[in-house]
């Protein structure tokens, strides 16, 4: 019981802090919004020229990818907040209360998930205004948001582990920058693999975990519930989550006890 309550109160705290520093939200939304407005114009004719885009507009093709890109870069910032909480003494202040230890981490993760979903909603509304739509409608959007949030949760573990280990926000930020671009562009987030990328990159992309999630979300937006793709996305995300969050938990336990 105390786990639920404590997680809730720490989630509310994290969320309040986030809302009160809107500049952070602004900057993390800036990149996906620029992608959405600029890339969909820049590549609009490519989608028509290459059959590998599946005969849909570039906006329709890229929006799921941009949603994932947003989740990916937001989750890689997750560790910076825990670094602040550690270095400013908040974690220590929590630890001398009877608070459930896991709630300190869970409250943070819930806030990150909430943030990714809220940002995704903003991006989705913008995309709708530009002419995008989800063929699976509300159930599909809900399923897609679940996948996106779960994806964010899995990747946040990397940034949390780095944050807990180095206690340096700069390192966490730097890592986010280094990982985002290669992983994003060598996935099927913004362009199709087969029939567009060079062969070696098709191979890389087929191992890239981002591709799996993008494909599943793209199916939900353009085709319908393709359970095979959703299942493999869930499998890949779960695999990453197990590794990254186990590492986070290990590092966190070392600090807590």
């Amino acid at each position: 019981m105390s786990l639920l309550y404590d997680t809730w109160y720490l989630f509310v705290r994290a969320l309040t802090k986030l809302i009160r520093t809107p500049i952070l939200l602004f900057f993390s939304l800036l990149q996906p919004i620029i992608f959405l407005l600029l890339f969909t114009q820049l590549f609009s004719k490519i989608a028509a020229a290459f059959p590998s885009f599946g005969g849909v507009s570039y906006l329709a093709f890229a929006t799921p990818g941009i949603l994932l890109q947003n989740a990916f870069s937001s989750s890689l910032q997750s560790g910076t907040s825990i670094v602040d909480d550690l270095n400013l003494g908040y974690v220590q202040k929590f630890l001398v209360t009877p608070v459930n230890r896991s709630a300190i981490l869970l409250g943070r993760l819930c806030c990150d998930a909430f943030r990714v979903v809220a940002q995704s909603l903003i991006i989705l509304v913008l995309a709708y205004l530009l002419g995008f739509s989800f063929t699976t409608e509300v159930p599909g959007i809900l399923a897609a948001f679940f996948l996106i949030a779960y994806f964010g949760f899995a990747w946040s573990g990397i940034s949390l582990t780095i944050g807990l280990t180095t206690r340096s926000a700069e390192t966490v930020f730097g890592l986010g920058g280094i990982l985002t671009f290669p992983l994003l562009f060598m996935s099927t987030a913004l362009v199709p693999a087969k029939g567009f990328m060079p062969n070696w990159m098709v191979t890389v992309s087929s191992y890239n975990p981002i591709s799996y999630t993008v494909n599943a979300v793209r199916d939900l937006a353009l085709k319908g519930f393709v359970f095979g793709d959703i299942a493999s996305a869930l499998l890949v995300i779960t695999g990453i989550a197990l590794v990254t969050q186990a590492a986070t938990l290990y590092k966190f336990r070392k600090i807590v006890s």
Partner: protein
Amino acid sequence: MPDIIDVKDLVLVYGDGTKAVDGISFQVQENEFFGFLGPNGAGKSTTIKVLTTLLRKTSGSVAIAGNDINSDSAKIRKMIGVQSQETVVDLDLTARENMMLQGHLHQMRGDALKKRVDELLALVDLTDVADKRASSFSGGMKKRLDLATTLVHGPRLIFLDEPTTGLDPQSRAAVWQYLEKLNKEGVTVFLTTQYMEEADKLCKRLSIIDHGKIVANGTPSELKREIGTDTITLKIEESGLEGQSARAKELLQQTKGITEVLSSDDGLTAYAKDAGFIVADIVRSFDASGIKIASIGVSSPSLDDVFLHHTGRRIRPEEAGQKPAGRTRFGARRPTRQ
């Protein structure tokens, strides 16, 4: 009644091999105002971290209200309040939100919590700014808010790690007032400080800690008495008579208990143990000799002198100028020899 804090042979060695606490033992009774006095790096904060369950001791035993620090830590956390050396208040939250969060983490809910928060905000004079974000607060206000957050759940025992370091004299005096009030209400206070004046004013009993070891224990007056030498300063009325000053000096030297007499332009200075008891003897013998006393004063040794006595060092030589009122240099109080 068992001691609320019972520490025996506590040792803490950090991962890098630094022995921060080197076999200390002490007890604190319920409702006592107990102090740890020592310079930076003496082991004060480390001891607090062990006593508040944040650091695991290397060896020795620690019990808080009869609960073992390792096996009953959950029980201990419910009854203690901790203010760390750095001020920890969430700057993005309002004063009230900071308080409510702390209460929630202590499993307090509803109207009881709201009422408690209002009371405490009033206690630390933050009612007017209760709904303003802490980022707009001055250093003193943040420190007071931090103190209030440690009290939300009504702890029996509070640990304060240098609660007034970095505060202006006015805020410092305000914090002292709150602490005395709390102690009167029955809260046991464990305080660390590097301010002599603070330890002297607040603590009923204290330990002096240096290099991870306790070098002295006792009430401030006991500690000061232990090193002896109070100072008596005396001035006689000029009567024009020859040799009066020399006679006065002679009389002082004959007074039982006085160890040393020096004369200077300002008058006479004598050193003695328990000078308070000797003053009457001096007055009587001067009276019998017909020497009129213009003024006579007694000053006790400060805790600064005590620290010097036990460690051979000043507590903060590099910051002597910042020390609160009073003499800062031992030698400065001695008049020049003629």
